[in-house]
Structures are given as structure tokens and as C-alpha cells.
């Protein structure tokens, strides 16, 4: 007996039993039958044909006059059957796309991977979580032989795949900068030229570039319209904004960036972030900057990486575990 014959017999059995007693068991068996028919890709119009054949075979003579009505039902169900099959094939395509994006996301992780520098006087923590599979945020550390630690944090306006593709370009431009120590303002100026020439005019990138001199403990920085970071003053136990003016990357190729500097004492903390951190949205609106500061203060006694992880957990919870934007947070703490 072929598979279809088996299904047919089963259906007829259910139908016969229900016609006799109208009990719930037959209905439950029908439900199971329908799951099985979906599993074996039996289309709606085939089910109707099955039903009609079964009725005819059961010899329900009183049904004679009703039988032609099944032709109408069958015809009406044809389009549903087609829609169903189309849905099946679209689902397969969606699966393929999804796994392709997963591969791309893994590639991106490898591509954008960066080592957190190991320096005696600093403790550095960093975390970057994409809102979707691929991230439009980027951060990178460079350590040079003279004892400077450079940090770049960038955010493409927008998210998802277009932002991710754009980010990869930033990474390559960073890699092609000349070796050796680079002044933050000059780094931004040279990246700005690359972005202006190569990126779609509707796509903008914000970036913060900082260089921590481990000999003088001065933090030199410049910003291209990036979300302002915070500086935690250990002595007075309070925050101040890391203020830096500058135009976004990719708007005007002649843009000049101003460089700023800040002396860092033992216990002080530099906090850098993408707007996914400050623009965390909850049901009640944006997360206040003060809330963020409270969280950081709450965990300030912990190690840098732990602070980052804890703050992320808190904000994730606040947002009901649904990130609306890529999230990147970096903490640099002077420990001696």
C-alpha cells in the first residue's frame, strides 16, 4: 500500500468513526492527521479530494445531491494550496538567507576582532553587542612600543547589513594608516577623507579616537560627532562629560578635527560608548543618562570588564532584552 493509500485509509477511518458517534476522540485524531499531512506536504485541495472520495465510498446516499459542491470547495482551495506551497518555498529561502547572514556575522566578528591591550597601569573592559545579527558599531585598540594605548570607537548611523558593510571599510582604512603613533585629530581627518570618497552620501559615521599616554597619563582625544563619553573623577566621585566637538565622518572632506586632552589620576575612569547605550529605549522612554551613571557608580568597585558586563545586563533588563540599537561600551580605568 502506498503512502497516499495509507493516509486515505486513516482518514476514512476517522471520518467513519465520527459520522457514527461524533466524539472528541475522532476530532483529536483529525488534528493529528492534519499535522501529519502538513509534514508530508499534502496540500489543502488534496484533503478535500480525500474527503469527497471517502464520502462517496462510504456510500452515504443521502449525500448524493451535495457531492458536486465539493468541486466548488476544491476549486476555492486551489489558491490556498498554491499560497501554502509558496509560503513553504519562501520559508526555505528565508532559512538560507538566515544562515548566510550568520556566516557573514561570524566573518564580521573575526574581521573586527581586536585585542584588549595589557598594560600595567590600566584596566580595560569592552563589550559590543549587535542589535541584529550584524553590527554597525566598531571598536579597536592599538598599543605602540612607546607605551601609548589608542582606542577607536565608531558607530554607523543605521544598523544591520548596510551598516556592517560600511564598518568593514572603516576597519580597512584604519589598518592602512601609517605605522606608529598617530595624533587622534589626524586619524579622524584621514578617515574622514576615505569615508567621504567611498561611502554612500546618505550614510554617516560617528567616531571617537583617543590615545592614552601611559608615561604622562594624559588622554588625548578627538571626536567626529560621536556620542560623548564620560570621565569619572575618583577624587570627587563624580562624572563629567568628555566634551569634544567635530563633524561626522563623510560630510565634508576638508573637515579639521580639534584635539583635546585630559589628565588622568589613579582611580579615574574613562567611559566611551555608542549611542546604543545612551539611547536605550524602554516602554517609558529613553534611559536617562543619570540612570546610566547610577549603574556605573553601583559597580565602580569592580574590575573594568565586570563593570561593562554588569551595566550591559542592567540595560538589557531595562529594555526587556530587546536591543534597538547596536551597543558598545568601553571602560578604561587607571589602576596605578
Amino acid at each position, binding site marked *: 500500500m502506498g503512502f497516499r493509500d495509507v493516509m486515505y485509509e486513516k482518514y476514512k477511518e476517522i471520518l467513519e468513526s465520527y459520522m457514527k458517534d461524533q466524539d472528541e476522540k475522532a476530532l483529536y485524531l483529525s488534528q493529528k492527521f492534519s499535522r501529519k499531512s502538513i509534514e508530508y506536504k499534502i496540500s489543502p*485541495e*488534496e484533503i478535500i*479530494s480525500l474527503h*469527497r472520495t471517502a464520502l462517496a465510498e462510504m456510500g452515504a446516499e443521502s449525500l448524493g445531491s451535495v457531492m458536486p459542491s465539493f*468541486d466548488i470547495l*476544491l*476549486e476555492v482551495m*486551489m*489558491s490556498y494550496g*498554491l*499560497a501554502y*506551497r*509558496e509560503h513553504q*518555498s*519562501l520559508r526555505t*529561502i528565508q532559512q538560507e538567507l538566515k544562515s548566510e547572514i550568520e556566516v557573514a556575522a561570524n566573518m564580521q566578528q573575526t574581521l573586527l576582532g581586536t585585542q584588549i591591550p595589557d598594560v600595567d597601569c590600566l584596566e580595560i573592559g569592552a563589550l559590543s553587542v549587535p542589535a541584529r545579527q550584524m553590527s554597525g558599531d566598531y571598536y579597536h585598540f592599538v598599543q605602540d612600543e612607546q607605551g601609548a594605548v589608542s582606542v577607536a570607537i565608531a558607530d554607523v548611523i543605521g544598523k544591520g547589513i548596510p551598516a556592517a558593510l560600511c564598518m568593514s571599510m572603516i576597519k580597512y582604512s584604519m589598518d592602512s594608516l601609517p605605522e606608529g603613533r598617530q595624533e587622534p585629530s589626524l586619524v579622524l581627518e584621514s578617515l574622514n577623507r576615505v569615508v567621504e570618497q567611498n561611502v554612500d552620501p546618505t550614510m554617516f559615521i560617528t567616531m571617537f579616537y583617543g590615545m592614552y599616554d601611559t608615561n604622562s597619563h594624559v588622554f588625548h582625544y578627538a571626536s567626529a560627532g560621536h556620542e560623548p563619553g564620560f570621565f569619572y573623577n575618583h577624587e570627587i566621585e563624580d562624572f563629567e562629560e568628555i566634551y569634544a566637538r567635530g563633524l561626522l565622518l563623510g560630510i565634508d572632506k576638508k573637515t579639521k578635527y580639534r584635539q583635546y586632552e585630559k589628565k588622568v589620576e589613579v582611580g579615574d575612569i574613562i567611559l566611551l560608548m555608542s549611542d546604543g547605550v545612551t539611547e536605550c529605549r524602554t516602554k517609558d522612554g529613553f534611559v536617562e543618562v543619570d540612570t546610566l551613571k547610577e549603574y556605573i557608580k553601583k559597580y565602580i568597585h569592580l574590575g573594568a570588564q565586570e563593570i561593562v558586563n554588569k551595566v550591559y545586563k542592567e540595560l538589557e533588563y531595562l529594555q526587556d532584552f530587546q536591543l534597538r540599537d547596536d551597543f558598545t561600551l568601553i571602560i578604561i580605568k587607571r589602576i596605578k
Partner: protein
Amino acid sequence: MDSCVKIINEWDIVAARQLGRNVARDLGFGTVDQARITTAISELARNIYLYAEQGEVCIEKTESGGKIGLVIISEDQGPGISDLRKVMEDGFSTSGGLGAGLPGVKRLVDEFHIESNPGEGTLIKAIKWLR
């Protein structure tokens, strides 16, 4: 028996369906396959009616390697299709409520061939084999 139907107005679609159903029944197709064949004919005839000035649908019997099949040929001198890949894509026509579209027709039959040149028209040949 005349095996072609000229499609000029909407009722010609019904005539094309009737022709297809008669041939399908005579060849021994079951009710579900008859419905599939007529739905495919409907779609093709409707495309002629909606998008081409004139055209016709022909139904033929075919035999190959001991198998018997029904061939639907739809030919028109309409505007033609410039992007075949796009119209053969799932979700392209259905999303606009235009019906099953050509991917739907392709699913209903066993073989599907299409030729189309912008400005010249479209020729579609679809075969359903008797199982």
C-alpha cells in the same frame, strides 16, 4: 474538436478552462489534477486577458516514453516580459494580489517553459503528466 481558444474577453477564460477540463478528463486525470490543470489554464488565460491585447490558449495531448501528458500552450502578441527572473520569483505577483502568478503555474504542472521578448509577446508551454 477545436483545441485552441482565443482570449479576448473574460468569458474566454471559462471556455479555455472547459476545454482543458474536457481533455484532462478524457485523458484520465483525477479531480485534483483536473483542478490543477484548469487553475493553470485560468492563470495563463487571465494574463493574456489582462496584459496582452490578444492571444490564445491551446490544449494538446502528448506522449513521451510511454507517458501520457497534457500540454497547455499560451501564446500572445502582448508587451512581453522584460525581467523573466523577477516574474518567476515567489512573492512578486502574489504580494500585489495578482493571483498565483507564473511561479504558481509552474508549481501546478510538471514542466514549464517560457519565452518572452519585450514588444513581441510571450510563449508559455506547460505539461502535466498523467501519473
